[in-house]
C-alpha cells in the first residue's frame, strides 16, 4: 500500500452519562458507552437491565433525561432518529419490524432510498446485500412470509442498506442457538470490518459475545457493572454473580 490510499477516518459515537427516567422509573442511570469505527462492542445484561433503552438513546428513538449523545465532538442529543439514520447511525429492532408486505428486496432498497441514495445505486447495493447475506432465494417474496430464521437477517440487511457508519443491533441473534448466534455475529463482524463501521450489539447471552466482541459493557438494573475487554470481564466476580448466577 502506498500513502495515497485514503485511510477511513476513525470516529467515536458516545453516550455520555446517559440517564432515562420513565415517569418516575429510572430505567437507566449514568451510563457511558462508546463505539469506534470498525469496532464491535457488546452490550449485555439480564432482561430489563436497560439494554434496549441504551440503544434507544443512542439511536435517537428516545431522548435522554440526563446526559448527552456525541459523535466526535458533535452533540446529537436532540437530533431525531431519522436524521441520525441519515448521518449514518442506524439501528435494528428487537422485534425486527420488517416492512411485511414489501418484498425482501424492496425492504432493503427502500432503506437505501430513505438515506438519499439514487435508484440505480440502491438497486446495486440491494443485489450485493442479498448475495452477501444469502437472501437471494427469498428476494422477491413478501418479507412477512419469509422463514422466521431469515427475518432478523432481513432487518440487518435493511440497516446495512443505509451505508451506516455505526450499526446498533438489538439482539440480532435472538431465537438462535449458541453456535448459530456466534456464526451470525462473526458475519456481522466481517461486514463491519469491510465497511469500517462501528457496531453496538445487544445480546443477552454472555458466552456468545465473549468470543465475538472487541469490548463488552455489562448492565444491571440500569447501571454499568463493568466495561472492558472480554477476558477481563469473564472472571469479574460481580458479573459472575449477577449474570451467571441468575441464569443457571
Amino acid at each position: 500500500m502506498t500513502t495515497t490510499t485514503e485511510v477511513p477516518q476513525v470516529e467515536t459515537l458516545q453516550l455520555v452519562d446517559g440517564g432515562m427516567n420513565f415517569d418516575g422509573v429510572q430505567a437507566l442511570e449514568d451510563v457511558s458507552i462508546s463505539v469506534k469505527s470498525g469496532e464491535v462492542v457488546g452490550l449485555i445484561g439480564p432482561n430489563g437491565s436497560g439494554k434496549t433503552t441504551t440503544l434507544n438513546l443512542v439511536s435517537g428513538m428516545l431522548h435522554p433525561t440526563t446526559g448527552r449523545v456525541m459523535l466526535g465532538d458533535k452533540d446529537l442529543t436532540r437530533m431525531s432518529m431519522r436524521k441520525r439514520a441519515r448521518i449514518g447511525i442506524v439501528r435494528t429492532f428487537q422485534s425486527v419490524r420488517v416492512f411485511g408486505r414489501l418484498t425482501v428486496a424492496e425492504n432493503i432498497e427502500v432503506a437505501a432510498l430513505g438515506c438519499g441514495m439514487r435508484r440505480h445505486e440502491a438497486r446495486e447495493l440491494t443485489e450485493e446485500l442479498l448475495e452477501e447475506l444469502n437472501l437471494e432465494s427469498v428476494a422477491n417474496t413478501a418479507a412477512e412470509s419469509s422463514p422466521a430464521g431469515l427475518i432478523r437477517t432481513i432487518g440487518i440487511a435493511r440497516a446495512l442498506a443505509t451505508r451506516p457508519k455505526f450499526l446498533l443491533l438489538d439482539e440480532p441473534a435472538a431465537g438462535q442457538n449458541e453456535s448459530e448466534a456466534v456464526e451470525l455475529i462473526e458475519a456481522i463482524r466481517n461486514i463491519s470490518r469491510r465497511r469500517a463501521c462501528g457496531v453496538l450489539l445487544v445480546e443477552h447471552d454472555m458466552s456468545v459475545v465473549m468470543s465475538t466482541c472487541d469490548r463488552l459493557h455489562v448492565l444491571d438494573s440500569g447501571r454499568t457493572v463493568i466495561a472492558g475487554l472480554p477476558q477481563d470481564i469473564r472472571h469479574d466476580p460481580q458479573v459472575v454473580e449477577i449474570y451467571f448466577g441468575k441464569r443457571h
Partner: protein
Amino acid sequence: MTNSTRIRRLFETPILLVALMGLVALIAVFGDPTITRVTVQALIAVVFVAGLSLFSGNSGVMSFGHVGFMAIGAYTTAYLTIPVNLKSSMFSDLPESLGFLATIHAPFPIAVLVGGLAAAVLALVTAPIMARLGGLQAGIATLALLVIVFTVLNSWTDVTRGSSSMIGLPKSTTIWWAAGIAALVIVIAWAYKKSRSGLQLQASREDYLAATASGIAVGRHRVFAWVLSSIPVGFAGALYAGFFTTFNSQTFFLSLTFSFIVMIVLGGYLSLSGAVIGALGVSVLQEILRRFQDGAFTGGISLPAGIADLILAAVLLFVLVKAPLGLMGTRELRLFRKRSIGSAS
C-alpha cells in the same frame, strides 16, 4: 431478478389495465344508451378510485375526504363551461371579489385540467394536517375535510347555489374522454406506486417507526401523495359535471363517498388493479341493484327505496370479514403469474 423480468413486471399491469379501459369503452360504443351511461359512470368511478388508491393504497391511510376534491373539480368545471350569458343570470349575487367568475369561460379540456389543479390547491392547504396525523386520526381528519367542503358548498349559496342545482353545463364528457382520462390516471397511479417516493410511503404504511429509523421522511412523502392524488379526483369531478350536466351540494357527500369506499375496499385498496376492478365491478352491481329495486326482476313490483344501498352495505360487511384486503389483496393483474418468484431456488 433479471433486467428483462423487472421491465416486464413494471409494464405488465398498467398495460393490462389500460387495455381493460379500451375494452370497456368499446362495449359502450356498441351498446345502447343505457349501457353507454353505465359505462361512462363506471369509468368516472375508475378515475376517482385510482386517484384515491394513489394516496390510500401507498400510505395505508383511508381517505373519506376525496369526494370533497371531486366537488371542487365539478364546481370549477361548472364555472368554466356554463355559457356566460346564462351564468350572469344564475349568479347575480356574486361577491365583488369573485365577479370574474361570471365572465370566465374555457373549453372542456381546460376545465378538466383546471378542475384537477383547483383540487390540488385544496389538497395543498390541508397537507400539513395529513403530514402530522396517522392512522385513525388521519382518517377522521379526512372525514372532517369532507364535511367542511360540503358545508361551504351548501351554505355559500351566492356562489354555489347550495342545494339548488347547477344547470346549463354543456354535455362534454364522451366515452373517449372518460376512458382516456381513466387510462391516464392508471398510468400516473402506477408510476407513483413504483417510484422512489411511492416505495418509501409503502414502507411507512407497513411500519411507521421502522421507516423513520431507515431515514424515510414519511410526512413529506405523504404530503406529495395527498396532493398528487387530489388531481385525478378533481378530474373525476370535472368528468362527472360534464356528463350529468347538473348537480348540487348534496351530490358530493356521504352517499357518493360510501360508493367509492365500497369499490376500493371490495377490489382491494392496496392494489391498483383491485381499485380499478372494484370500481368497474361495483358500478355494474349498483346498476343491477337499482333495477332490482325498481322491479326489473320482480315482475314490475318495485321494492322499498334503499334496498340497493342495503345490499351493497351487506356485501361490504361480508367482504370486510371474509377478505379484509379485498378481492386482490396486494396482488396486481399480471399475465404471467409468479414466474420469477422463487426463481433462484
